[in-house]
């Protein structure tokens, strides 16, 4: 098959890129594998981690958690609805009517 041994080739490329990274800005091409599937390379002049740099957006932890909260709440509500439906054959959307 065509794909056999790709991982080895990829690692070869990776080794090579790592070597050239800090040496020459011109060699930057955005790709430099640390491991299979983890090949991102910061652009010349840009940090590898943005925390504490001028690019740190300083997101609020609370904001970052909001999506999961919303999803968990929906999942709970949906579970109640489906449970009621399985029992009664009637779909009641309004959760307040199920509690």
């Amino acid at each position, binding site marked *: 098959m065509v794909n056999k041994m790709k991982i080895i*080739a990829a690692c070869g490329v990776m080794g090579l890129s790592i070597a050239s990274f800090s040496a020459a800005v011109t060699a930057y091409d*955005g790709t430099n594998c640390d491991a299979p*599937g983890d090949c991102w390379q910061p652009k010349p002049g840009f940090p590898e981690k*943005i925390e504490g740099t001028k*690019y740190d957006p300083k*997101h609020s932890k609370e*904001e970052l958690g909001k*999506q999961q909260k919303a999803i968990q709440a929906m999942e709970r509500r949906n579970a109640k609805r489906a449970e009621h439906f*399985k029992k009664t054959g009637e*779909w009641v959307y309004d959760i307040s009517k199920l509690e």
Partner: protein
Amino acid sequence: MKINSMRFLSAIALALMVASPYTMANQKLDKMSKEDSNWVMPGGTYDFNVFGEQTEINVNNVDQLRPAWSFSTGVLSGHEGTPLVIDGMMYIHGPYPNNTFALDLDNPSEIVWQHKPKQDPAARAVACCDVVNRGLAYWPGDGDTPPLVIKTQLDGHLVALNAKTGKEYWKVEVMDISVGQTLTQAPYVAKDLAIVGSSGAELGVRGLVSAFNVKTGAMEWRWYATGPDEDIGLADNFNSENPHYGQEGLGQKTWEKDAWKIGGGTNWGWYAYDPDLEMFYYGSGNPAPWNETMRPGDNKWTMTIWGRDVNTGLAKFGYQKTPHDEWDYAGVNVMVLTEQEIDGEMRKVLTHPDRNGIVYTLDRETGDLLRADKLDETANWVKYVDMETGLPVRDPEYSTRMGHRSRDVCPSAMGFHNQGVMSYDPEQQNFFIGINHLCMDWEPFMLPYRAGQFFVGANVWSYPGPKGNREEGIGSGQVKSYNAKTGEFEWSVMEKFSVWGGTMATAGNLVFYGTLDGFIKARDSRNGELLWKYKLPSGSVGYPLTYTHNGTQYVGINYGVGGWPAVGLVFDLEDPSAGLGAVGAFKELQNHTQMGGGFIAFSLRGQGPFDDLSVGEYKPNN
């Protein structure tokens, strides 16, 4: 992550328990999809070939195609997708407020039922790209549960309607608009599951895909694009055949700290399904925010072609096309399933015209990358895809970064291909691809994440690509015939505007598509010659379907300009960088078409249900 793991286990258990009825309903829909009288899912069939076997309308008589009847949905904005046709009934969907209509094809002047949900209008404010909707799913019913029409609402609901009455059968919450989540996608039925994705990566929404049991409304599984592997749903043998794609831990490792929680990777495009492999296919979308400087890493598993087991949702493979996207090349585009002889070997493949300007062919069993051809040679961010590593080899000149305005990047953020479908003629073995010929300037900026607010961080100016007429703002579209075996484009034509909605092909050697400026066109699919066109009321961002009813072949299409390319028109914007760069690219559009919304059915000489003049007439009862 407890909830997810538990669900995972119960999903498997359930899959094992109820395996046989699953298979029955599955086969029924598959079988129905192959009848000329039906169009039961967005792609026509599970393999998403968007192809009609009919030859009644063909290259020799297509010039006699005329409107047979039409139906306005009562709503403006972009009318994406195409209706369903099942057992003599047509089911028509529309953008927000997502009304659904059932029309009897024997007399489409009477609406059999209509479902008009009341939604929180705030949903409109968190939709990134007009308030579009891409279509419906159908589940054929068994003895106990009636046939269902399944729909999404912009406000995040997935709703199952009794297909005969339009009454709500169940209704679940999939997305929450208060945190920027919406649904624009057509849901998808495989076995007894309704599969649905997510929208909102432009608001930092972490993408997910979910499956609900059509009979109970209960969620069977849900998997994310980013984060811990337990959330992403990786099968034990994930990428075992292509370990260089990456395997464990990357949904967190390729992000800085918590960035994966607001990292996008929504999936709002199309699904395809292989009933033999029991695997389904789709792409996850762009990482959030667009500003790449704000998210160091490969940002897995955004921008990924997924092959997942339908029963558990677990991923057998995932191939990330654009690691660490810098251009919003969201990877959600259509997957078309075919068999191709590639390098002398017959393979079950999927072909995917990606937004990043490359059309990929993968073995759909293993995920092996078989081909990666530029959709147009003007794509310049990438030199080529390294077939050994699967990695795009970038041209740093067209990379983007803070403090820099990148110029003449091709494709633009809108991609060389976006939400449009792609058709495939199995006889000719060619794909017909509607293409956006668009490039852009791009300039990022910083911003903090606030749940429910736009989280883009880039200004974009799109415009026609080098083959178009940038001054006049036209020449932003192409249609091409692609041969996946050779990687050749057998023909290619320019269009005034992006071919946004995609194509439908028929065995009559025809390829049909709608244009943003409001034509439906038919070309000879063998050579691209224009054979017929009709001026629709409004531009089309949908795609044609074909069905045979009472012995007559119809071609139909949604009209109603909108979607991302027409946000300037829909929301009356003028700044060229508004609408995430679309306004400038399509400023000419308003001189060709205005909003509208509806469906038109065409047939040879316009024959149809009203040839019998008594159909739809008032019959006095005395």
